C-alpha cells in the first residue's frame, strides 16, 4: 500500500536518513500528482493504484533533476507514459506540468547540491520535455487508434460485403438451380427476371419470357379466380395466391403449372414486385388424366366403366329442374356364355369389343353414353331433356337393331342377341343409382325370360315382386327361427265311400309384413338357398306329430295318412332317410301312415343313387307319391323301376273335365293312366276336384282318392279333426 499522503503542499520534514527522506518525498509528490490528475483520467484503476503507478515516474523525474550530464529523456518518457496510462485528456498534461512546476524542486531537490536557479531551469526543461513526450505519445496513440479503428471498419465492411456477396451468390444459386421456375415482375406485370428452369418450362427461349407482360398469359382454361386474385395482389390487397394455371409454350403447346405468386414489398411496406414460383405439372396432369381415364374406362372395350357410369347416373339423377329426365337401357347378351365356352375367351373378348363398338354408334348424341358394367352387361344412358317421344325406347330399338347384323368372327357369322331392361324417369327423384340399376336388371331378366332379343320396360309391380323375392330370401332363415311357418292340411278323400283317407300337409309362412304366403312364394327361394332342408325337416316333424295325434285320438276310424312334400334338394340330401326314420321313431307313427310326395320332374332321369333313399323308405313301408304326374315327359316304362306306390294326377287333367261336355280324349287319357297305374299296383290320387260331377266322373274312371275344394280347402288341423268326426258319425 502506498503511504497515505499527509496533506498537499505541506513542508517536508527532515528525517535522519537522506535516502528514506527522498523516498518519502517521492511518495508525497506522487500523492499530490495523482490527486491532481486522477479526476481527468479515464483509468479504471483506483486512485491508490493509480498513485502506485505514478511512483516510478516520479523517481525518473527526480533522478533527471540531478543527473549529470543533464538529460531530458526521462521526462520525455514520462510524458509518453501518461498517455499510455490513459491520461489522454489535455488537462492531465496541464495539471501534471503544474504539479511538476510547483513541487518537483521542492520535494526532490537536494538542498545545497545544485544552485537553486539551475534546479529551476532544469525543472522547466523537464516540463518542456514531458510536454513534448506527452504530445508525441498522444499523437502516436491517436494515429495508431485511428488507423486501428479505420482498419477495423474496413475489415468489417469487407466482411459484410463478402457476406452480402455470399448471400447474393447463395440466392443466385437458389434462383438458378431451383427445380421450380422463378420469375420476378414489377407491379405493371413487366417480367424483370426469370430463372433457367422457368425458361426451359416455356420451351427454352428466354426471349419468349423477357420483355413480356404477365397479363399476356391469359389462357382460356384459366380458373375464374386467377385474374381477380392477381388484381388484388398487385394492389397490395393480398400477399399471395396459389392456383393451377395453364400457359402456352413458345410452340403453342400447353404448359400446366402450379403457380404461386407472392407480393414483395419495400422496406416501408409498399408493394414493389411480384414473385412467381411455378411448378411444371403438365406431365403429372397428363398422368392424372390417364389414370383417371383408366380408372373410369373398361380396358377391353375402351367404354366407360361402372365407376364412370355411376358418376354420370348419379349426376343425371341429381340434376335439378322439372324437365330433366333420364333413360337407361340395361343390356345383357343372350347366350354369351355359350359363345365364350365354345369359341374361347379370346373370341368372346373380340365379340364384346365389336358389340361395344356397335353400341357406341347407337349413343352418339349429346347426353348419351354407353358403358360396360362387366362381363356381357352393357348399359346405355340418355339424359336428354324431355320433349322427344320415347327417347329411351328408340335407343333400345337402335341397340337391338345394330345387334341383329351378324358378327363375323374367325370366318364364322355369329348372331348375337340381347335382352334389354329399360328404366326411365324424372331426374331429381327419390331413386338412388343402385335402385335404378336394380330395376333395370330385374326388367332385363324379364325380357330374357320372355325369350330374349327384346326390351321390356320397368314396371313397378314386377319390380316389387322381384324386390320382395329378394327380401323374402334374406328373411327366410330368421323366419324359421322365429316360428313364422305353420302348416295347413287338405283332406284326401276316398272316392269310393267319400271318407277322409288322410291329409296333405301344406306349409305356409306368416310373414310379418306380407301376411300369409303360399309355398309357391318361398319354397323355390328356400330351395335356392338350401334352407329347404331344415324347413322340410320341420314340416315333416310337425306333420307327423299331427298325424300321430289324430290317429291316437281317433283310433277307431282306421289309420289316417299324412302326405308331406319333398323338394328336389331334400331328395338329394344325405340325411333324408335318417331324418325321416328319426322323426317317425320319435313320434311313434306307423311308417305306413306317411306318404312322401316327390314331383315327377325331380325324378326324371334319376339314377339309382338318387332312388336309393326312396327305395329304403319304401321298404320301411313309407308310401312314395309321384306328384304332378303328367306334366313332365316321363318315360312311362320307367315307372316300373321307381319305388313309387301312388300317382298324383296333375290338376290339369281335372281342369279338362270341368268343361261341358267333357272332352272324350281327356277322359280316355285319364282312364288309360288309371289302368296303367293299377296294373303297376299303384293307387291314383287326383287333385283339384271342384265339383261333384268331377268327383263322380273320376270315381267312375277308377281313381282311388281325391283332394280339392269340392271337399275342403287346406285348413287348420282341427278342421280335419272335425271332418273325421263327421265321417265317424
Amino acid at each position, binding site marked *: 500500500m502506498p503511504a497515505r499522503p499527509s496533506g498537499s503542499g505541506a513542508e517536508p520534514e527532515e528525517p535522519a536518513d537522506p535516502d528514506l527522506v527522498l523516498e518519502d518525498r517521492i511518495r508525497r509528490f506522487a500523492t499530490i500528482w495523482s490527486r491532481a490528475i486522477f479526476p481527468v483520467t479515464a*483509468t479504471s*484503476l483506483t*486512485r491508490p493504484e493509480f498513485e502506485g503507478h505514478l511512483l516510478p515516474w516520479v523517481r525518473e523525474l527526480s533522478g533527471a533533476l540531478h543527473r549529470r550530464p543533464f538529460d531530458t529523456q526521462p521526462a520525455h518518457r514520462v510524458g509518453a507514459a501518461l498517455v499510455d496510462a*490513459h491520461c489522454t485528456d489535455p488537462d492531465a498534461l496541464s495539471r501534471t506540468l503544474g504539479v511538476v512546476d510547483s513541487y518537483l524542486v521542492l520535494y526532490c531537490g537536494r538542498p545545497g547540491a545544485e544552485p537553486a536557479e539551475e534546479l529551476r531551469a532544469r525543472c522547466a526543461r523537464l516540463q518542456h520535455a514531458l510536454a513534448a513526450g506527452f504530445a508525441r505519445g498522444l499523437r502516436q*496513440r491517436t494515429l495508431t487508434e485511428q488507423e486501428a*479503428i479505420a482498419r477495423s471498419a474496413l475489415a468489417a465492411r469487407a466482411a459484410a460485403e463478402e457476406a*452480402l456477396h455470399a*448471400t447474393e451468390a447463395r440466392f443466385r444459386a437458389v434462383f438458378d438451380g431451383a427445380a421450380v421456375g422463378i420469375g420476378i415482375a414489377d407491379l405493371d406485370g413487366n417480367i424483370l427476371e426469370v430463372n433457367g428452369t422457368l425458361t426451359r418450362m416455356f420451351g427454352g427461349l428466354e426471349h419468349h419470357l423477357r420483355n413480356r407482360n404477365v397479363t399476356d398469359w391469359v389462357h382460356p382454361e384459366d380458373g375464374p379466380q386467377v385474374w381477380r386474385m392477381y388484381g388484388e395482389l398487385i394492389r397490395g390487397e393480398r400477399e399471395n395466391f396459389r392456383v393451377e394455371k395453364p400457359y402456352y409454350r413458345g410452340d403453342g403447346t400447353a404448359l400446366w403449372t402450379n403457380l404461386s405468386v407472392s407480393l*414483395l414489398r419495400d422496406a416501408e411496406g409498399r408493394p414493389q414486385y411480384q414473385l412467381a414460383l411455378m411448378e411444371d405439372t403438365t406431365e403429372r396432369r397428363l398422368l392424372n388424366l390417364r389414370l383417371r381415364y383408366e380408372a373410369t374406362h373398361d380396358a377391353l372395350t375402351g367404354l366407360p366403366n361402372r365407376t364412370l357410369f355411376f358418376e354420370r347416373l348419379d349426376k343425371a339423377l341429381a340434376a335439378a329442374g322439372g324437365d330433366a329426365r333420364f333413360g337407361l337401357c340395361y343390356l345383357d347378351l343372350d347366350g354369351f356364355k355359350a359363345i365364350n365356352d365354345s369359341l374361347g375367351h379370346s373370341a368372346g373378348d373380340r365379340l364384346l369389343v365389336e358389340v361395344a363398338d356397335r353400341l357406341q354408334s347407337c349413343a352418339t348424341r349429346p347426353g348419351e353414353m354407353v358403358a360396360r358394367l362387366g362381363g356381357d352387361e352393357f348399359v346405355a344412358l340418355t339424359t336428354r331433356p324431355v320433349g322427344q317421344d320415347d327417347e329411351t325406347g328408340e335407343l333400345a330399338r337402335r341397340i337391338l337393331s345394330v345387334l341383329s347384323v351378324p358378327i363375323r368372327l374367325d370366318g364364322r357369322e355369329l348372331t348375337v342377341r340381347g335382352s334389354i331392361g329399360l328404366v326411365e324417369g324424372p331426374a331429381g327423384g327419390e331413386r338412388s343409382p343402385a335402385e335404378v340399376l336394380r330395376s333395370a336388371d330385374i326388367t332385363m331378366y324379364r325380357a330374357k325370360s320372355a325369350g330374349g332379343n327384346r326390351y321390356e320396360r320397368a314396371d313397378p309391380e314386377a319390380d316389387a315382386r322381384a324386390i320382395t323375392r329378394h327380401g323374402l330370401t334374406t328373411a327366410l332363415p330368421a323366419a324359421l327361427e322365429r316360428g313364422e311357418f305353420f302348416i295347413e292340411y287338405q283332406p284326401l278323400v276316398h272316392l269310393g265311400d267319400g271318407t277322409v283317407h288322410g291329409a296333405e300337409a301344406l306349409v305356409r309362412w306368416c310373414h310379418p309384413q306380407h301376411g300369409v304366403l303360399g309355398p309357391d312364394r318361398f319354397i323355390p327361394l328356400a330351395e335356392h338357398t338350401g334352407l329347404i332342408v331344415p324347413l322340410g325337416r320341420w314340416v315333416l316333424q310337425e306333420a307327423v306329430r299331427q298325424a300321430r295325434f289324430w290317429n291316437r285320438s281317433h283310433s277307431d276310424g282306421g289309420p289316417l295318412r299324412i302326405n308331406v312334400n319333398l323338394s328336389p334338394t331334400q331328395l338329394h340330401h344325405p340325411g333324408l332317410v335318417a331324418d325321416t326314420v328319426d322323426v317317425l321313431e320319435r313320434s311313434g307313427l306307423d311308417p305306413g301312415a306317411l306318404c312322401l310326395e316327390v314331383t315327377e320332374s325331380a325324378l326324371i332321369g334319376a339314377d339309382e343313387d338318387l332312388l336309393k333313399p326312396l327305395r329304403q323308405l319304401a321298404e320301411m313301408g313309407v308310401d312314395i307319391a309321384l306328384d304332378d304326374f303328367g306334366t313332365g315327359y316321363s318315360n312311362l316304362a320307367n315307372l316300373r323301376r321307381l319305388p313309387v306306390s301312388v300317382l298324383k294326377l296333375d290338376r290339369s287333367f281335372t281342369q279338362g273335365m270341368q268343361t261341358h261336355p267333357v272332352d272324350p280324349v281327356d277322359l280316355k287319357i285319364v282312364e288309360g293312366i288309371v289302368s296303367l297305374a293299377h296294373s303297376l299296383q299303384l293307387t291314383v290320387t287326383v287333385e283339384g276336384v271342384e265339383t261333384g260331377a268331377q268327383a263322380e266322373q273320376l270315381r267312375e274312371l277308377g281313381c282311388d282318392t281325391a283332394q280339392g275344394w269340392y271337399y275342403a280347402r287346406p285348413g287348420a288341423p282341427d278342421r280335419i279333426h272335425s271332418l273325421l268326426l263327421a265321417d265317424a258319425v
Partner: protein
Amino acid sequence: MERPAWAPSGIDISVPSVSRIYDYYLGGSHNFEVDREAARKAMEFVPGLPKVMQSNRAFMRRAVRFAVDEGVTQFLDIGSGIPTFGNVHEVAQAASPDARVLYVDHDPVAVAHSEAVLAGNAAAAVVAADLRKPADVLGSPQAARLLDLDRPVALLLVSVLHFVEEQDEPHRAVAELRDALPSGSLLILTHASYETMPLPQETVGGAVGVYRDIRNPLVMRPKDEVARFFDGFELVAPGLVKLPEWRPETPVEQEDPYAFSGFAGVGRKA
C-alpha cells in the same frame, strides 16, 4: 420481407456507434467524427458522461476480480464494444491464468477491432451476435470452444441492457441466458437509471434524446425493473446499488458525483 439470419447488415460508418462513442468518452481515438459529434452533444446535457463510463469500468474491474475470487474463471461479456484498456480479459487473465473470456457484440466494427486485439490470445475470442438472440450467442462455435457450460460462468451485461428496448424483451433474453448457465454462475450487471443521475430528469432526457436520434435509444429503467433482471439469481452483498457503492476499494465519498450514475449488482444463480 425479413432479412435472413445469414444476410449481414451493411457497414455504415457515417452512422454513430455506441461502442465508438463509449470509446470517445474514455479518451480513446477508436472513433470517427460522427461518433464524437454525438458524444459532444450528449455531454452538453450530461458533462460527466466520461465519469459515468469510468465508473462502469471500475465496477466491472472489481466484479471480475470478485468472480475470480469466487472461483469463476469463465466470462461471457455481452455488449463488450471497442476493446480498450482494462478489458475483462486483461483483468481476468491477470487475476487467474485459467481465465477464459468470450466477448459478444453486434457492432461489426467493434467485432472486427476485437478480433484484431485478441489475435493470438487463445483464451479469449469475440463473436458477432446480438443480446436479443441468446441462442446465437450460446450456439456460436466460439462459445463451444471457450465456455464449458457445466461449470459456472460470469455473464457480464455491463452498460448494455439500457440499449435494449422493452419490445425486444430484454428480461426474456436474460432469462434465456440464465437458463443456459449452470448454477453458481454470476450475473454482473449495470444499468442506467434516472434515479441515480445527479441532474434533473429533463436535463438527462436531452442526452437520452441524442441516443434516440442516432437510433440507439437509451432506456432508463427504475430500480425495480433493473432488479427484475436478477430473477433466478441471488444478489450478493451489497445487492443492487449505485456503481461506486458496490464493494468499494476506496472511500465512496471521494467519488465524482457522476460516478454514481447507474445501478450495479452481481447475482449468483442458485
